[in-house]
């Protein structure tokens, strides 16, 4: 009996969903386009940082310093012809300015400290940090050389080995993460709209007037949009594979289990928003501010969660996307199989069930409120 009603609700939702052809098309095309944009455009690795150098020393030492700066492959010379120095930064034409003062080489030879003056545009923190690392590195290696020996034979040499993504291919990092972000936004959005629309149109009254329980209603609706979400997921995985070459590494079965579980958790949040808002515009804003922001910013999509400070780091544990992003990265990059992923699926399941409980609580009366 319960099964029958759930099935009934499920098919009705799907029928309604596929009725609006443009909406249907958008629901599947938008995620793909979002994936392409994210995959192609988002780059965290610093590159082509514009550099202005003023070599007032013009000695072999200063020239070798500059040579080494460019040898890091991070910098490109900035198109800057001006005289006043900080102008280049003010005008956004350079991100870093290096000045080698007159007498630099002479100071070094005289046993004094030769100061290289560096001004970094700190308003772009991400690049500022990379620039600082590069300049520090350059200075140290010039210094080492100056102190006598070629660096290769000197002291400790670290053999650094990057597992899984030795070339630090950004797509391997960005694409699996973006699956999580995209799938965290669209299915909840669709289900929230579907629920609020029933309230706005008044058809919800028919549901109240039948003995359909909140459980049946929510499960039926959830399953329908989980199905839609799985369709979107499948398309994303295929596009990711064909376009970015991101394929399975090792056992893909955790993904096949984890994706529906993640959908469950995500869709419940959509339902909760649908239940507690009364207009579609409010529901959309809620999804917009809650879902879009958390998915992009609080799920470890770009920046590692380990650096989130304490009281706020708690929030991220309640964001199912973070587990799903981790799961995707595992299945598409790491490949540690069930051993390394089962806890992620359990976490999502727990969150999903808790959210379902909240949705059920909000809907349990299945009555008009006075």
């Amino acid at each position, binding site marked *: 009996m319960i099964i*029958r009603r759930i099935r009934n609700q499920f098919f009705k939702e799907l029928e309604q969903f596929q009725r609006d052809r443009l909406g249907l098309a958008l629901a599947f095309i938008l995620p793909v386009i979002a994936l392409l944009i994210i995959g192609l455009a988002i780059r965290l690795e610093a590159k082509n940082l514009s550099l202005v150098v003023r070599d007032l020393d013009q000695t072999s030492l200063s020239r070798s310093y500059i040579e080494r700066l460019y040898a890091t492959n991070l910098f490109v010379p900035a198109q800057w012809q001006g005289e006043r120095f900080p102008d280049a930064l003010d005008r956004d034409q350079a991100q870093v300015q290096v000045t080698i003062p007159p007498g630099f080489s002479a100071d070094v030879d005289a046993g004094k400290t030769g100061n290289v003056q560096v001004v970094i545009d700190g308003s772009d923190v991400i690049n500022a940090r990379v620039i600082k690392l590069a300049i520090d590195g350059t200075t140290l290696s010039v210094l080492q050389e100056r102190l006598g020996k070629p660096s290769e034979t000197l002291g400790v040499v670290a053999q650094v080995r990057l597992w899984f993504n030795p070339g630090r291919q950004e797509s391997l990092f960005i694409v699996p993460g973006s699956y999580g972000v995209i799938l965290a936004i669209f299915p909840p959005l669709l289900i929230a709209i579907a629920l609020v629309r029933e309230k706005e*149109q008044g058809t919800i009254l028919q549901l109240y007037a*039948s003995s359909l329980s909140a459980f049946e209603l929510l499960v039926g609706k959830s399953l329908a949009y989980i199905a839609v979400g799985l369709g979107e997921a499948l398309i994303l995985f295929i596009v990711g594979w064909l376009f970015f070459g991101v394929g399975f590494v090792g056992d893909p079965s955790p993904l096949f289990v984890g994706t529906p579980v993640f959908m469950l958790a995500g869709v419940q949040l959509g339902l909760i928003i649908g239940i507690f808002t009364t207009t579609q515009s409010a529901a959309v804003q809620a999804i917009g501010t809650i879902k879009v922001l958390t998915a992009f910013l609080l799920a470890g999509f770009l920046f590692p969660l380990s650096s989130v400070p304490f009281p706020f780091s708690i929030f991220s544990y309640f964001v199912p996307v973070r587990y799903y992003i981790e799961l995707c990265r595992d299945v598409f990059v790491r490949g540690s199989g069930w051993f390394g992923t089962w806890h992620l699926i359990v976490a999502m399941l727990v969150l999903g069930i808790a959210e379902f409980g909240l949705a059920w609580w909000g809907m349990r009366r299945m009555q*008009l409120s006075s």
Partner: protein
Amino acid sequence: MPQILAHASFPEKADRTLSTPVQEIATIAIRKLYKHYGTTSALRGIDLEVQQGELFGLIGPDGAGKTTAFNILGGVMEATAGNALILGLPARDARNYIGYLTQQFSLYPDLSVEENINYSAGLRLVPEDQIEARRTKYLTLMQLDRFRDRLAGRLSGGMRQKLALCCALISEPRVLLLDEPTTGVDTIARREFWDILASLTAQDITIVVATPDLDEAERCDRVALMYDGQIQQIGTPAQLKADLGLQRLVIRTSALFKTEQALLTLVQTGELADVSTLGDRIEVLTPDAQLGKKQVRDRLAQADLDCDRIQPEVATLENVFTTLLRRQGSVPQSLPFPRSPPESAITPASTIAIAARDLNRHFGNFHAVVDLNLDIHYGEVYGLLGANGAGKTTTIKMLCGLLPISSGTMAIAGETGDLRSPALRQRMGYMSQKFTLYDDLTILENLQFYSGVYGIPPRQQREKIRWVLAICGLEGQEHLLTRQLPGGWKQRVAFGASVMHEPEILFLDEPTSGVDVLARQQFWQLINDFARNGTAILVTTHYMNEAEQCNRMCFMVAGRKVAEGSASEIKAAQPGQLFELRVAQLQASYDRLRQHWEPWRVSIFGDRLHIVLDHSNQELPQVESLLQSANLPLLDTQSLPFSLEDAFIGEVQRAGGAPP
């Protein structure tokens, strides 16, 4: 038209009015039911019992608490106090045995007819092996079987309501709750709808129905009159009418307005209980028919007016209702509209305000309006009548400039060029079918908005808003959100909003749908008042006795004009002859006669039957023998002039029937 009851092979219903079983538990039992919303109380102690198989009518003015009662009975709302039992169970636990048609649209517009039904069936756990049979049965009954794949959003108003009824019936509920199911549905579809209801009660389904149309309520077994959250009277229509203790005199005259004015003095002196114009006749209520007749004749002689005929009649349910409301003092006020001083002389009535020549409109292959010609003068009330989907709204939208025309020419207020210019729109008023007001604004904010966009000067604005609130009886409640108003009240406010700027040309698209009787009368007084002041008014309505008040009108069928003229001209042009039959058993006699004549020829009017006969000499004896053979007493037969409704049904049928 297909035979509606061809599939209704139900056992003949025993006449319940004679032998109501006393011992059985009432199907619906309401005890001391209260409902408060914050500080306002919608229900104030209702007691009610409805027996199995009864067709029970709930009537009352807008805001009487009917929808609240339905919501509680339907189990979608909790009562503040008291209980409502259905089949011995609390309403909420009995939901599986109830079908509830809400006033709001209860279908999914983006699902097809069949999908809507399937969904309802699944929702209410109809055994899967029975779905197909039931679906076919009810779709056939409602004549929707040809439209299984059409989206619900694309159905006409009448079809939507029938589909909604199908969805409610698919689980074969034992109780049906119908909250104003025929609002916005045309005359013909409305009749079919009530025929279906009658056939359902024959299967022992208990039906509670609310309706603002008291002619419909006459078809109920029992009726409760609600007012201000309480049931004021309850009983069979016959009982209620008998209890009223008043007789009705029907006066037929050509000088309607003057006669009414003359007779109103008798109401003030207390000699007559009430006088009102209904369509082409004047009705007078009097405690004693003979005395009243004499008083009326004397008064008319005094005023130098003559009348064709004064006929004593039994009071109608409408009389019961209006008398009750008058006693309660809740008659809508008729205040003179605060006109701004006329800037120029009133446009002579001979000038044409709206002219249309060979107007056409296609939607793809669908021809919504075909070669329509209209000439409407200033000071004229022109009725555009037709079934749902006949092209009335399309016509109005084209005349308003909201919809481009496919071909033809129009002139509005002499303007032929830019029909969308602000100057022209300032001179026009428009009240659309439903969506005139903003639900999320208060009444006052809505009125302020419309007076603002029409540029009414602030001082007049205040006066006019006060007028609208007064005629709606909403003084002191202007800060209510429009969303919270009952449908009929919204219509009244919307009407006020669309006339505040004193338009020269007024378009009213079903202004009275869902409005209670008294408010409807008031509407027409206001409409006539505007016409007398020179406004050209184009109005559509589904209520034919209202349409009689139009100076001229036309009938539209499938986008074409099939008849035009004044009410009397149209009626005079009808072929055949109309007879009114007074019978003991209305429904059974009706069913019997419809098996022999084309169904449209036989119709129920209040507590009478109307039959249109082309050859009365031969056919009238046939009627008598048919009824006699079925043991259905025929009390009285009378030849009547055609009413507009009879004429409308006849014209529509001859022109090929109402579109689906």
